[in-house]
């Protein structure tokens, strides 16, 4: 794979390449007037095919030819991907490439958006989650979600974590509920800090603690998959590190799909990485393979920091 000369700053004779590269490598001004490259004809000749291995052993969630339209905007195009049980897979890509949209398809959160239309199939344990008989409520008890900005309910810490088990009837009595709450807080690494003040409002915690509370809330329902939409982007590095450690522990019991802007984070926490670009799934592979030897040009450009 030929690499264009990184140190070549001459503007009068840019080397030919299938992907337009910025004239100078001053990153600041380059990003300003840079337009995200479309797939060139050469690349689409590959058949719009995702490079790498979409499949995995032990698939738990299988997406086949998923398309998402926001009105006329074709946001996700022909994405197929398999997610295994108990693995961490990171979705990376530049802003607006559709990774959050795809994530939200997995637990049908896009249903809440009026103009969104989803085609294709997403199978959880062999059954299409978009079929008519599927109740989104039951689905979301199996597929939990942690959002970018921590959003604890304005209730007590106890009630925050207990809400999920309460509405799904997971606890028989108060003692069982207590048990679930304590276990969830402990697994989220929050119990030691809050065990004396479970009656205080969830909003009185710091940002990192609130996000861990949201994670505790999600695992209290005992889902099979946890979706995380940039969970650490609003947090400081120390809180981020704690949550990444948490993910290491959680992946022993749950599959985790994490959308992240930070490639370092993807490299640290995930086993597989999927690279999205303008609504297309460009490459999927094991983390070390993608970061050391990416197969697609776009993936390589993104990883080396030339785009996004």
């Amino acid at each position, binding site marked *: 794979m030929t690499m264009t000369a990184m140190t070549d700053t001459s503007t009068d004779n840019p080397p030919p390449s299938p992907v337009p590269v910025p004239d100078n490598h001053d990153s600041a001004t380059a990003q300003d007037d840079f337009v995200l490259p479309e797939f060139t004809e050469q690349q689409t000749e590959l058949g719009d095919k995702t490079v790498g291995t979409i499949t995995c052993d032990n698939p738990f969630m299988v997406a086949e030819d998923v398309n998402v339209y926001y009105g006329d905007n074709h946001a996700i195009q022909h994405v197929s991907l398999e997610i295994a049980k108990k693995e961490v897979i990171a979705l990376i890509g530049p802003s607006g490439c559709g990774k959050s949209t795809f994530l939200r398809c997995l637990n049908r*959160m896009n249903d809440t958006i*009026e103009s969104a239309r989803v085609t294709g199939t997403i199978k959880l344990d062999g059954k299409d989650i978009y079929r008519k008989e599927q109740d989104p*409520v039951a689905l979301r008890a199996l597929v939990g979600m942690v*959002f970018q*900005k921590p959003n604890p*309910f304005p209730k007590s810490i106890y009630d925050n974590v207990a809400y*999920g088990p309460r*509405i799904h009837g997971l606890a028989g009595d108060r003692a069982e509920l207590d048990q679930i709450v304590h276990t969830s807080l402990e697994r989220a690494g929050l119990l030691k800090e809050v065990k004396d003040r479970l009656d205080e409002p969830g909003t009185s915690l710091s940002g990192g603690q609130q996000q861990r509370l*949201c994670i505790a*809330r999600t695992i209290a329902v005992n889902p099979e998959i946890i979706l995380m939409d940039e969970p650490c982007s609003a947090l400081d590095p120390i809180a981020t590190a704690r949550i990444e450690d948490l993910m290491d522990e959680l992946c022993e019991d749950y599959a985790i799909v994490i959308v992240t802007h930070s490639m370092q984070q993807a490299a640290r926490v995930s086993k597989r990485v999927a690279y999205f670009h303008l609504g297309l799934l460009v490459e999927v592979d094991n983390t070390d393979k993608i970061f050391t030897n990416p197969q697609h040009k776009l993936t390589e450009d993104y990883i080396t920091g030339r785009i996004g």
Partner: protein
Amino acid sequence: MNSNLTTREKVAAGLARRRRKEYLFRLTGILATAVGVLFLGVFFATLVAKGSSAFKQTFVQLDVDLTADVLAPDGVLDLEYADFDGLVRNGLKAQFPDVSGRGDRRQLYRLVSMGASYQVRDLVAGNPELLGTSQRLWVPASSNVDMLIKGNIDAGLDEALRPLSDKQVAWITELQDSGRLETRFNAALFTNGDSREPELAGIRGAVMGSLYMLLVTIALSFPIGVAAAIYLEEFAPKSRLSDLIEVNINNLAAVPSIVFGLLGLAVFINWMALPRSAPLVGGLVLTLLTLPVIIIASRAAIKAVPPSIREAALGLGASETQVVFHHVLPLAMPGMLTGAIIGMSRALGESAPLLMIGMVAFIVDVPGGFTDPATALPVQIYLWADSPERAFAERTSAAIIVLLGFLLIMNLSAVILRKRMERKW
């Protein structure tokens, strides 16, 4: 570098003008506020000046002989037909034994209110053992005497120009000198219903009528309004129909209130044959009036709940109904309650729609239930303002003060409620 200097100079040059504009703007704001406060001050000052005297009433001390011959002619206490009036007159005659002649005597009797005889009757009815004794009572003076004492009737005028003759004025002065004339707190204003006699007129009937009406209004408009707002905001599919409904509800909030009175007359009284002048009908009409206000305020409160809370709840697997009732409604409740209280205080002050459904009648009895004929406080004020008796002028102002007091309490509680229940998301 150069460009920096010219910026500095340009900014400095324009600074004086900007400061002056700012100063003028603030001055205008202060002036506008001052004018508003001035008007408010004048309004309240006039009101209090006119109405405060109504809280006092002149009383005359009489010695009344509760003679058994008059009260129990056949040995049995006769509360219906006994001549209580005669006993009062005897008390007056005892005070002024020199007064003779029918004309003069009649003038003497007019010094004391008609209510005096009822007061004697109530005393004997409550304490039959007092029969045969002589009691010293403070009875209300007639309204003309009251007005003279309060300075509303000029004693210096020619006799023909005032409602009290010279003789009456002389008797009054004599009573005052002997310590038998006093001004006390006018409890009758709060304990009696309406009356033709100003000194016996009170707002109790109107206040009870208003209270029953407000109870009906709040019992109906709050649940219906909140439920409608929740449905329109959360569950109704976005379509032309729901847009039409929204526009119509917003319009209804601005419809003149008398139109609702006409609707009430046509539907509730004519078609449904509900009793006229009843607080039930008044409450129904006011419900129609308050409903759009509550719906609009509730919708705004629901819209203000941040979508992140909803997403969090949905993400956990809560159904739409659970999201609304567990999360949205508790967070929107302060706004809804504030809207409801403001709607209620508007309903309390309405009189035009009530005139249409007949609550403008002269009703002396205090209503005991929702279907008894009643009147409302604003309507009472309207009726008293129309009355010719001099003493009703101050009572009108007093009733307005009471009404404003209720409205102030309601709005204050709305503000306190809002402050208390403010949350940070």
